[in-house]
């Protein structure tokens, strides 16, 4: 028995060295990509992989970063916090230098602690939870999307300044994103004397109908509804409101600024307001990025594609600027050096939010979202 134990230990030690060896021998720059790549939220995560692939192919063709080739390490986190920690430790143990991801705010929060302890900068194209940057807990976190409170601010300002509304109902879908946004909207409205929140409630996503809530909104006498959530629920609510012959104004968020919303709600979608990332369709880099995607994959890019594209460029550019993969140098470069991206020229503030990335208000007109200036 003893003999066998000895053999086993030898094998074990050899394995350990091999594992350590592979980590040290590599001299590529390792870019981790994490997000949901399977499951029901996969459609939010996969475009990020494609963006990263295209950026890396482009940069490697031009000689890489600091003369080293960039290697992609792609890991699935299915948007679940507990899986995200596994994903993060896997990326860390594989020796990534920077990470593009994660996609969902919850998974991002869970994973960030692990990256922080290992001094790895992380940049998300999509995690909009305000606490990620505002709590100050995650100095290693950056993002190329504006946070929820910025969106809520825009919605409230639009309702008060442009539409001059007095009575507003705030509704959310009880989810991380929707409820967070609604809470901000409610707080902003309550601070402002011009309007009052006549109604604040959460609906159950996936329910077969929302007639009771719609009835209640009607009874509350609200002139407008600010909704935090995604398009499947939004289209049901709008349809039900219009069928009940209510002309209550509907203002919502990025989760609703999706063409599917218009396709589902059809004629009832007309006039609905939704915030969304600033229109960058005239930015030449954005045009090029979209073209590259079409050429490589034969389809239009999906959700957060341009944010992810920009994040990948920003991360790799920061390493180039810093001259090493050293944590302090890279984060410093991210904060101080401007970089040209499809989202425009960006740089990051002390908290990690991108300066120059923001939201605009859109409205459905003749079956399409139109940016309001």
């Amino acid at each position, binding site marked *: 028995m003893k003999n066998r134990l000895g053999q086993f230990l030898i094998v074990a030690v050899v394995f350990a060295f091999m594992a350590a060896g592979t980590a040290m021998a590599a001299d590529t720059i390792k870019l981790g990509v994490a997000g949901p790549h399977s499951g029901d939220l996969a459609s939010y995560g996969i475009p990020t992989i494609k963006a990263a692939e295209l950026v890396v192919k482009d940069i490697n063709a031009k000689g890489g970063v600091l003369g080293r080739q960039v290697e992609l390490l792609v890991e699935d986190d299915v948007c679940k916090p507990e899986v995200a920690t596994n994903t993060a430790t896997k990326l860390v143990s594989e020796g990534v230098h920077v990470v593009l991801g994660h996609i969902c705010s919850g998974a991002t929060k869970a994973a960030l602690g692990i990256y922080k302890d290992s001094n790895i900068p992380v940049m998300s194209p999509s995690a909009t939870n305000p606490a990620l940057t505002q709590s100050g807990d995650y100095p290693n976190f950056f993002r190329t999307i504006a946070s929820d409170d910025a969106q809520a601010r825009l919605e409230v300002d639009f309702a008060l300044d442009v539409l001059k509304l007095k009575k507003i109902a705030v509704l959310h879908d009880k989810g991380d994103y929707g409820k967070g946004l609604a809470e901000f909207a409610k707080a902003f409205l309550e601070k402002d004397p011009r309007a009052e929140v006549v109604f604040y409630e959460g609906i159950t996503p996936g329910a*077969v109908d929302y007639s*009771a809530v719609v009835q*209640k909104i009607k009874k509350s006498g609200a002139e407008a509804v600010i909704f935090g959530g995604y398009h499947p629920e939004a289209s*049901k609510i709008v349809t039900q409101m219009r069928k009940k012959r209510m002309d209550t104004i509907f203002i919502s968020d990025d989760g609703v600024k999706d063409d599917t919303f218009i396709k589902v*709600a059809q004629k009832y979608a007309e006039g609905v307001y939704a915030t969304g990332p600033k229109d960058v369709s005239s930015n030449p880099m954005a045009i090029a990025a979209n073209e590259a995607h079409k050429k490589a994959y034969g389809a239009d890019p999906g959700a957060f594609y341009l944010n992810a594209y920009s994040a990948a460029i920003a991360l790799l550019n920061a390493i180039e600027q810093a001259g090493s993969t050293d944590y302090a140098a890279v984060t410093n470069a991210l904060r101080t050096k401007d970089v040209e991206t499809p989202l425009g020229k960006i740089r990051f503030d002390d908290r990690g939010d991108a300066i120059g990335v923001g939201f605009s208000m859109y409205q459905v007109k003749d079956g399409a979202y139109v940016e309001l200036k």
Partner: protein
Amino acid sequence: MDYFFELFLGGLTRGSIYALIALGYTMVYGIVQLINFAHGEIYMIGAFTALIVISVLTMLGWNQIAILLIAAGAAVVYSSAYGYTMEKIAYKPLRQAPRLSALISAIGMSLFLQNYVLLAQTSDFLPFPALIPDFEFMEPIAHIIGSPELVILITTTIVMVLLTFLIKFTKIGKAMRATAQDRDMAQLVGVDVNRVISVTFIIGSATAAIGGVLIASHIGQINFYIGFIAGIKAFVAAVLGGIGSIPGAVLGSLVLGWTESFFTGYISSDYEDVFAFVFLVLILIFRPAGILGRSTSEKV
């Protein structure tokens, strides 16, 4: 009072939607004593089949009413076929096994079907066309109750009556009741139990398909996950009414629909589902077999 009435109607619609799914659920349970966790998936497959048929026929430029009929027919045929096959694969070999094993098998089936549709189709929500036109005569009250809601209400009633009739008065219904009472005994007196169970699954799945088409058309969108959520609610409704009882399923669904509607209307939709479940627990404390369920005290 107007407000109350509108909430009442809202609850009624919601309840009859639950009922369309709960009817098949409760019927399968009554005869096979199996929680068919995948019943919701059959409903989802019915909706998808209908959507696919509609899309293809619309592209071919067929007449609206023909499309509607063919789509509904295809949904019923395919859902029944799926229900039948599912029973043969996942439940029949487990007739003698512990009931928990059959439940796990059902959960496995549910997962499989969800992911099958997810992979073969898409994870996104797809718009589902409104199949039921807004009737002329409904125009004056359309803001209170729409035509699709009316159709759902009527369909639920018809399905309930037909199922009750089928079970009470037909030959196969008699065989079903015998099988439900005592499977071995039924077999001894010459009932083809396998056939009865197959027929049960086929009918249960067919009602799920009708529900799938109507509800999808009412809601206006579907994805692969709608079956699971609806299935859980229908399960709650069926248990509330007394699982295994056809009128119980409808009553349970309506009670659940009203509970949710009034709770949302008068208190808050934040805790709508919490309340629904608490209500279920309360009912079961006082009537451990549901509202219409007969508490079968075990023969000692």
